[in-house]
């Protein structure tokens, strides 16, 4: 797809992150090209969320660099707000603003951070909400929505700022099983439309379907990375094999 000569949309060079004495990321190297979908997998606590939060500059890294379109966004003096305006993150627990209607949730960032006029922001928001089956929920408050609807609204909120990079952190793990499908369908649709995405997930079947590449995180590093068919079916690393066999035993692949 994208040649090696092209500047990567996202690049992590030896990223280290620790919380107090606990080392979480210990030299992460990762390259994500435009239109690529990369899935992060690995056992609970291996640092998937931390990695995504570091990319979104919600956590400060201790060592290494993170580059967005070739520009070091972890350098000193960088305007973090300007960087964050170019990407969006969707959390496991939705994190919609409970005091705002769905429409206001979705239009807040375009209006306040991007200076889009209200009428314009709302028109676009309604259009997007419609595309994701939430047309009739625009004026509701989040608490009146099902988990799946809330998560779709959170994804729409992320999309209204036209991000160059979308980060998704286990967006289905807080959902009842019967609601997982509708959210995965949305992400599949985004992948088809060419959105560049990095997503942490425990849904191996989904990772296999949607990912261009799967990365297995272990002890703070990317231990194994490759096309889903290879990593998930025929991993080269013993650790990956162990992790996958536990997942298979749990009936999740």
């Amino acid at each position: 797809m994208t040649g090696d000569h092209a500047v990567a949309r996202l690049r992590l060079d030896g990223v280290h992150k620790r919380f107090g004495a606990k080392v979480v990321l210990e030299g992460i190297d990762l390259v994500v090209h435009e239109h690529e979908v990369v899935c992060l997998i690995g056992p609970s606590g291996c640092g998937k969320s931390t990695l995504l939060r570091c990319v979104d500059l919600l956590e400060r890294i201790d060592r290494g660099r993170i580059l967005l379109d070739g520009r070091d966004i972890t350098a000193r003096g960088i305007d973090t707000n300007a960087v964050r305006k170019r990407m969006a993150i969707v959390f496991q627990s939705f994190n919609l603003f409970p005091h705002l209607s769905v429409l206001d949730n979705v239009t807040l960032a375009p209006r306040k951070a991007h200076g889009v006029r209200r009428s314009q922001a709302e028109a676009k928001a309604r259009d997007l909400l419609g595309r994701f089956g939430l047309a009739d929920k625009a004026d509701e408050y989040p608490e009146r929505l099902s988990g799946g609807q809330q998560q779709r609204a959170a994804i729409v909120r992320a999309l209204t700022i036209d991000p160059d990079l979308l980060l998704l952190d286990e967006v289905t793990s807080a959902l009842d099983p019967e609601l997982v499908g509708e959210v995965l369908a949305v992400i599949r649709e985004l992948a088809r439309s060419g959105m560049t995405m990095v997503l942490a997930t425990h849904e191996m079947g989904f990772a296999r379907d949607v990912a261009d590449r799967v990365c297995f995180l272990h002890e703070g590093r990317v231990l194994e990375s490759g096309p889903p068919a290879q990593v998930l079916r025929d991993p080269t690393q013993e650790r990956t094999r162990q992790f996958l066999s536990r997942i298979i035993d749990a009936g999740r692949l």
Partner: protein
Amino acid sequence: MRGWLAEEGAKGASVAALSTVAVFGLAVWAVLRSENWDAVQSQFFNPENFAEAWPDVLQGFWLDLRMFAIAQIAILVFALLVAVVRSLRGPAFLPVRLLAVLYIDLFRGVPLILAILLFGFGVPALDLPGVPRSPLFWGVTTLVLSYSAYTAEVYRSGIDSVPESQRSSARSLGLTQWQSLRYAVLPQAVRNVVPALLNGLVSLQKDVALVSVLGVREAVREAQIYTSLTFNYTSYVAATVLFLLISVPAARFADWYSARDRARRSQMAA
């Protein structure tokens, strides 16, 4: 189940009414037939003195109400400002953060009456050019400063009660620290502390009377003047009636609102 409860409720209500009438009736009867009642009545509940003192006390109370309204508005605004400053993050804001903490500690640590005396008599005595000398001005200002210190802490507890994920969610969308606070955190924070703010309001409504120590002629001061002239305390009762007229309904309202708020929350959590 429901029927049984309703029946119990109806029976309970009539028992409550009966016992209330009995207890209060007994108390009133005991007071009225005590041999001191006549003395008490002429000293505290004398209709003529009441009528005589009433206009001045009422006039003073009108001043109390105006002081209360102005102070309350100033407190709600100023305290929010202090709380916001206190919750700013980043090393650049350390000096203002420290200033906010210092202010809060100072004004929470000093008895209100002492602060009022200090500012109300002290500052005008300095005779500084361009600085107001009116005791009324300094009395209200001290009320605002003192109550704002408490109220800032109320707001701050509200800010702290909003999950961190709300802030990071706003920041991740590209909103600045200030915008995240303004649009995501503060509306939730304020809503969470409305009951506590209402309690502060009820107590301020009474504490405005403290500026009487500066000689400001509000209700208590007027009552005091009347008493010193006549050696009759009915004017105090008149002031009491006026304060109760406002504070009791206000307190009831605060309780009612808190109960409703609790119900709303437990419903949301369910």
